[in-house]
Structure formats: structure tokens, C-alpha cells
């Protein structure tokens, strides 16, 4: 447990490091407060505040505000007001640990562990559980059912449905376009242009429409992301980025558009090419 304490004290010191913290008054220990807490409680750097274990003032101690920090954006806490403060582990235990319980000062809520092989998280979890039944190890990444994997799958499913709807509409438009050019296609067939050439032309047209549509969509999303992020960041008072159009996402959108365009073009050309040339030019 001692090594754990030293480790957490080190982490706390690391979090609290910086010139403003080092410059705190000698007698009163320094703390950092979140930007949100500073604004809500109308505090200033240098103020002396009292922290206690409960609202009744149990084990109250004074601290000097050494600095302000922006809480690390956390998607799991984006709608939670970040009223937080950071202090040295020893200072924290001095406030919250019950002196009548000798083990209270040697208890921590969570320990972060970095494994040499990150993929062995499940094996580590099982081994730890076997030795200490009441300590649960949860891998922080690569979990098949982690919240963000689930949300990612949800968004992908919605995107897939949207693509199906868009394909139906693009098909309808391409069919109308093909109908419009029925006579032209009939004449082209009569003067000897092959079905393959005509089909290729319609498929290429569908492809171009789909790619242009995807490109415009990416441009609109890129333009919208700034507004969306600004709105939600202001709404939840967080630095979290809610929407990001990355090159990979843009490339995926265009990649999805290509088969959609090809299918739409192929179906539209089939509606024309299945008929005899003479029936296409008949008025």
C-alpha cells in the first residue's frame, strides 16, 4: 500500500506542479481549483479557502488557491458541472480520512495501472480478482462493449440507414434522368453506339453525382462542426470536442458514395438498355 500511496502522491504532485503552485505561501498548503469552481464561488488565485469532509465542517483545513486549471474534457462527465479542486494526496487524506480508523488513511478509490502488454488487460483483471476478490480491474480501452464503442456502433447504424434512404432517392433521380434522355439514348443505339458505352456514361454520371454530393456533405459538415462545438461547449461549459470531421471520416463518406453512385447509375441505365432501341425513340 505504501508504494501505491507514493505513486498517487507523485501523480497528485504532478497534477499540481507549475510555477503558481510552487509559489504558494509556506504555511498554508496550496491547491488548484477548476475554472468553473473559481467562477461559481467568485474566488481568486491567492485566496485562502476552507475545505472540510462534510458540510458540518468536520476536519476543516485551510488551503491557499495556487492556481486554476481547465478540467480534462471527459465525455462521461460532459453534462456534469466540474466543481472540482486538486490537492496533494496527503492533504486530501488529512481532510477526509477518519482518524479513529487506522486503515482510512491507507485506502484509495482507484489505481491506474499501465500494463507492459496493453492487450493482456482481461488476463490481468482475472488474475487480480483471483487474489483479491473485492478489487475489480477494468480495462480502459479495447473493450468491445465500452460506452464509446457502443455509441460508435449506434452512429454507424444510423449512417447506414441514411445511406439506404439516400440510395433510394438517388436511384429515383437517376431513373427520372434516364427517362428524360430516353429518345437520345434510342438514337444513339440506332446509330451504333454500344450498350456498354451508354451504360458506362450513365454509371459515370451516377458516380459523379454521388461523389459531388459526398464532397458537398463533407464541406457542410466541416462548416457546421465549428458551430456545433461552440454551441455544446457553451451549453455544458466544457472544452470537449463534440464533432470532428477528420480526413478519415471524409474519406469514408466518399468511399461509401462510390458504390452508391455506381449502383444508381447501373440501375438507371438498365431501365433504358433493357428496352429495344426502336421503342425508346417512339413518340
Amino acid at each position: 500500500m505504501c508504494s501505491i500511496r507514493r505513486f498517487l502522491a507523485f501523480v497528485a504532485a504532478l497534477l499540481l506542479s507549475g510555477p503558481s503552485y510552487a509559489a504558494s505561501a509556506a504555511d498554508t498548503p496550496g491547491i488548484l481549483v477548476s475554472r468553473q469552481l473559481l467562477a461559481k464561488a467568485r474566488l481568486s488565485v491567492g485566496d485562502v479557502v476552507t475545505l472540510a469532509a462534510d458540510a458540518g465542517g468536520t476536519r476543516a483545513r485551510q488551503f491557499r488557491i495556487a492556481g486554476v486549471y481547465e478540467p480534462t474534457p471527459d465525455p462521461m462527465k460532459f453534462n456534469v458541472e466540474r466543481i472540482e479542486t486538486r490537492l496533494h494526496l496527503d492533504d486530501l487524506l488529512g481532510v477526509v480520512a477518519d482518524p479513529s480508523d487506522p486503515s482510512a488513511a491507507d485506502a484509495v478509490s482507484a489505481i491506474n495501472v499501465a500494463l507492459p502488454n496493453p492487450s493482456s488487460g482481461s488476463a490481468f483483471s482475472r488474475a487480480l480478482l483471483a487474489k483479491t476478490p473485492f478489487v475489480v480491474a477494468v480495462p480502459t480501452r479495447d473493450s468491445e462493449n465500452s460506452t464509446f464503442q457502443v455509441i460508435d456502433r449506434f452512429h454507424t447504424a444510423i449512417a447506414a440507414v441514411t445511406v439506404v434512404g439516400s440510395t433510394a432517392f438517388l436511384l429515383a433521380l437517376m431513373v427520372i434522368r434516364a427517362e428524360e434522355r430516353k429518345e437520345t439514348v434510342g438514337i444513339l443505339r440506332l446509330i451504333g453506339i454500344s450498350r456498354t458505352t451508354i451504360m458506362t456514361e450513365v454509371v459515370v454520371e451516377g458516380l459523379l453525382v454521388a461523389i459531388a454530393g459526398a464532397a458537398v456533405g463533407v464541406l457542410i459538415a466541416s462548416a457546421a462542426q465549428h458551430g456545433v462545438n461552440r454551441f455544446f461547449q457553451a451549453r455544458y461549459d466544457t472544452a470537449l470536442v463534440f464533432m470532428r470531421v477528420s480526413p478519415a471520416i471524409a474519406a469514408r463518406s466518399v468511399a461509401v458514395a462510390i458504390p452508391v453512385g455506381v449502383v444508381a447509375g447501373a440501375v438507371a441505365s438498365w431501365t433504358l438498355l433493357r428496352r429495344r432501341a426502336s421503342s425508346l425513340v417512339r413518340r
Partner: protein
Amino acid sequence: MTPLALAWRTARRYRARAVLAVIGVAVIGALNFDMLMLSRGLVLSFADLLNGTNYNIRITGNTGQVFARSPVDHAATLMQKLAALPEIASVATMRTAFAAIVEPTRLPQSVELIGSSDPSGLGVWRRVSGSNLGATSEGAAAQPAVVSQTLADRFKVAPGATIHVRVGITGSMSAMPAIPLRVVGIGDFPFESADALIVATSMAGFAQAHGGVVNDQAEFMFAASRPNVSTDAAVAAIERLRSDIRAYSNEELVANFAKNAFTYFRQISVVLSTTTAAFSFLLVTTLLTVSVNQRLGEVAALRALGIRRRHIAATLLWEAVLLVGIGGAFALPLGELLARSLDGILRRMPGLPAGLHFFAFEPQSLVLHVLVLAVTALVSSAYPVWLAVNLPIAQTLRQEVVS
């Protein structure tokens, strides 16, 4: 011929495009319908969960977040006082603890131990097989237990089996011995995640697991108001008893849940329902406009024959209504299927209560869906109608003949 009949004939004449447009509207409409169901699905589902229990009031400590309140101190005394209130019909209490199942043949497995003063489970579980806790006997060798389905499957236990449970004392250097519990039933625990390993026992069993010494606290207390007393009056009466407790009616909890929990899904439902409505409008407008442009000669000929503008406009409007209406009707069953699929994806979220669903049908969603589609049909036909009724007849006919 009526405008509706003419619109129907036009749709049948251009069957391929009409079918494709209906498919498009059905798919996008299904997504729109799902987003409307998603917007209040969690709240309705949570309300169903709460109202499915026998109690309409929850009592906790007076500090902490709404869904993570401090425990109630001096729970036994409070329970007696609550039971004596004229506004209260019944009271129950619940305790939880970290525990582990320790069997000689396998590794220890962490579980959640629940102690309940209500043998039928407070609504915290619903019996699937076997029986509920029933009458508890203080000095019995093995107290009864109801276990979750996941635990029963993993440990291959059935009613009649005995399991050994050892509790962990948080923040204390204490190692309790394991106690035997007799499994009397298997239950669904809708407030816990589907894969949660739960053992629920009587309060006597809970105390026995703690070596017979358990502090007089309760994580939750449940109360049911008398039928002739309003819930608010019962809540007020409870809160008058002590200043360190807080009582919530089910309605209050649902309101808090709506305000604080899963707001992301409400927001995304608003964004996506707006986007899908705009998408439907744009695409139906485009289809109708292109379709009208293709049939300018036909429209001009009808006008030249003496068909009134109003008749032409009504025909186009009916075309839009047919496309959007038929597509919208198909969107309902399609939306239901899609909602089940999306719900299945979202319900794999870790720690989500098994009884909670993201999509819930309510008449309000259906009314809104119909309204959105009606507005889409009306607005999307506006431009094509304008094109058709302002058509220069002679010039259009001449162009048709020349081309």
C-alpha cells in the same frame, strides 16, 4: 377525373420512380420516427421501471447527487416512524454490499449483495423461477437468496442449491467468513445491468453475512402512500420526520432523470429528427420538381384543354401526399424494426439497467411523425405547384412540338 385519381394514375405510370421515392421516404421516415421515440424513450422506460414496483416514494440521505445519495442513518427507528405515519401504507428498506461468491472449485467472483426487508423484492427484482425470499427465520443455518439469471447461468445454480458468500467491508481491514445462502429463486433485476451478478437475501441474511453486526443504515428506503393520500402529501410528511433525509416521489425521480441522465441521446434525437425532416423535404421537393419539369408539355396540354390551375395544383399536391403518405405508413413498421435493432446496440452499454430501453412508443411520437410528414408533403409540393400553375401554355406547347 378527380385530382387524387389523376395523381394515382401518374404514380402508376411512373411506377419505378414512385416506388423508389416511397422506399426513400419510408427509410428516412423510419429514422425520423425512431428519433422521436428516442427523445423520450429513456424517460418513459425509467418511469415504467419505477412504477412497476410496489412503492411510489424513495427515501435516502440528504446529501450527494440525486442518484448517488448518502445512506439513511438510524434506519430501524426511521422505519418504525414511517410505518406509523397515517399517510403511509407500507415501508421497506434495502441495503447493498460488495461481496464475493467463494466456492472450493472455482475462483472467487465479485457479486453485489442486496439485503431486502420485503421478501417479494421491493420491485428491485422480478421472480423468473423458484420462489421469493418468503418468511425469514432469524437463526436458520442458511438464509434464503434470490440470484440474478446471469449468476445462475455462470455458476450453474438452480433453486435448492447452496452458495457461499463473503462480504467485503469497505475502508476497513476486516475479513469476514463466507456464509451459506440457500438459493430459493432466480430473478430479473431490471435496475441492474443484464450481466450483473446479484445475490439478494433477507435482512437477516445480510446481517449474518456481516457477522451479525451491521450498522443501522439503509442505502434506500421505500414507501407506498395510502390510496386516498396524494404522493406529495406523503413525501412532505416523511420529510417532516427528520432533516437528514430526503424523500422523492417517482415523478420527481423521473423529472430528475429527464434533466440529468443521458441528455446526449435527447440532443442527438432532436438533431437527427430535424435533419431527417429537412432531408425528406429536400428530396421529395427535388423529385417532384424534376418530375414536373419532365412533364411540362403534359401539364401545358391539360391547361390548354381547360383543366383549371387549381385542379393541376391539387393533382401535384396529391402526388406529394401519396408519396409521403405511403412512405410514411411504411415507415411505422420499418421504424419499429429499426428501433429494436438500435435499442439492441445501445443496450450493450456497460452498466445500463437491464430494464431500461432507449426507444419507447407513445401516441405523442406518432402524432409528431404524422405532422412532420404532412408538413413535408405540403412544403415540398409548393415549388412544383408554382412551376405548373405559372406555366406559359402556348410557349411550352410550341417548345414541346419543336423539340
